[in-house]
């Protein structure tokens, strides 16, 4: 089963929930940190990395001797990644989505493809659980291929927890797509509620069942709860607003290790979301 953790708004506690739930379940669980732009779960798990795999995107390589500058590739490319100017072809590799279309349309066979590294995937074990995360190279705009490569490591026979990036657009969709269910982490503030609403809309669109965890319970107002009640969204867990939890987070310590009772609570959270996925 695949459970993803998302939020819409950033900084609501996705990594906190993902890491603490994974550690509470222990062995046999796999955690993937799909926030490849700013991965943080490894700070809490201190994994031993046994494999580092570069991630490549195929980009066009033009043989100027064969190229007639006909511009068919330029006309085809939807991403403006190739241009002809002053009798020369220019490739803008960071814009290239690697679809391979330019090579297909080239009438003289002047275009080949070469691999360009856009990031890497690191695989290992941390806190007794299987763990992998990705890192997008600095300056690369598209995290998609790194997330895709990361998700190829999903162990279909076990339980996989996916820590998704913030936001609601392509990298989030890429991360949560194919999950059996999703936990939306929010905080009881107008910003938290707004992010939650957006993610509820996205998950409706891609048809993934979900439930809510409220983090920093006690701050803000009651509108998140009213919204969940009205929309019949189950609130499976509340994590109280606590200076101590914030301090432990700041030091990279999963708080379930310091507070009694939370291992059971996170295990129950998992049982509850599993039921939602099954229904």
């Amino acid at each position, binding site marked *: 089963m695949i459970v993803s953790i998302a939020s819409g708004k950033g900084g609501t506690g996705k990594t906190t929930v993902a890491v603490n739930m994974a550690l509470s379940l222990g062995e046999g669980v796999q955690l993937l940190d799909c926030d490849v732009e700013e991965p943080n779960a490894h700070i809490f798990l201190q994994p031993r990395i046994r494999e580092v795999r570069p991630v490549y995107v195929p980009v066009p390589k033009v043989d100027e001797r064969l190229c007639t500058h006909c511009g068919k590739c330029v006309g085809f490319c*939807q991403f403006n990644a190739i241009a002809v100017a002053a009798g020369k072809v220019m490739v803008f590799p960071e814009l290239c989505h690697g679809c391979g279309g330019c090579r297909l349309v080239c009438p003289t066979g002047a275009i080949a493809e070469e691999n360009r590294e856009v990031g890497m995937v690191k695989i290992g074990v941390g806190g007794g659980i299987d763990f992998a995360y990705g890192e997008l190279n600095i300056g690369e705009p598209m995290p998609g291929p790194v997330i895709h490569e990361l998700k190829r490591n999903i162990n279909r026979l076990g339980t996989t927890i996916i820590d998704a990036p913030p936001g609601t657009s392509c990298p989030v969709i890429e991360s949560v797509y194919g999950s059996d269910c999703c936990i939306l982490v929010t905080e009881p503030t107008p910003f938290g509620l707004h992010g939650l609403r957006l993610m509820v809309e996205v998950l409706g669109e891609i048809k993934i069942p979900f439930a809510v965890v409220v983090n920093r319970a006690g701050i803000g107002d009651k509108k998140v709860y009213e919204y969940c009640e009205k929309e019949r969204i189950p609130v499976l867990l509340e994590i109280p607003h606590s200076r101590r939890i914030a301090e432990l987070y700041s030091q990279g310590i999963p708080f379930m290790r310091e507070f009694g009772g939370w291992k059971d609570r996170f295990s129950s959270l998992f049982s509850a979301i599993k039921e939602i996925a099954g229904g």
Partner: protein
Amino acid sequence: MKQVVVISGKGGTGKTTIVASFAALAGRVVMADCDVDAATLHLLLTPKVIRQQEFRGSKLASIDRDKCNGCLLCEKNCRYDAISDLKVDPVLCEGCGVCAFVCPNGAIDLQDRSSGYAYISETRFGPMSHARLGAAEVNSGKLVTLVRNNARLMAETEGLDPILIDGPPGIGCPVIASLTGVNLAIVITEPTLSGLRDLERILALTSHFGVTPLVVINMYDINKANADKTAEFCKGKNVGVLAKISFDPTVTEAMVAGKTVVEYAPSCTASGEIRRAWREVLNILSTDPDDQRGAIPHETTR
């Protein structure tokens, strides 16, 4: 005209709180909310929309089953696994057009996909350019560019300077689109190990694009040792620390009230620290040699 972007790498460090407060302090200013997939600035500024434009940022393949002979060439050539059983999955389709090209029967064409809306609005602090990306839609980078172009038009029309940009979290395409060509990037971080790690990556990005960064350590008193470590790290990178802002529950109260913290509680600790930071930003912009116009609005008391 000058442009200041507020970014963070890590989400939830307080970008919008700072941008909205700066807008309140600036008097009349143009704002651009470039966090187009999870915009929040409007929650504090309650904009009145005066113009709405549809955003068609990408394409989507569509198969005409009457012309299709089921040869599966489209499926075989699609690198995004977006076609299965001769159906296009709109979530996976990148709109590249390879399927349409390889189809021997002309059964596939690319259709424009409406991916959201861009808005121009009026707020109590000046005009605002913002957008809403449709649910599960792609291409937020292009929408960010549209939002920034709209903001620039408004700034030119009204002769307002600078433009305040609320950026998205992360380091990917919408961040790059928010960052390129600005005069100053204010990077908001928090004194956590995650915050520090994310700061390293976002500062590598500003350096990659040659943009001057200034760091704000928000909620610095949550972990003063980490705040010191962050300041030390910035010093090592030759990056200035613009401000340290205290953890102040008033900030959340202001958000619940739908106001910026400098309006809601002008005398609270965080408000004082944000005001000092804004004065410093104005100072820095007025001495920025990149800009010839120098028309910076002065801070007004509200």
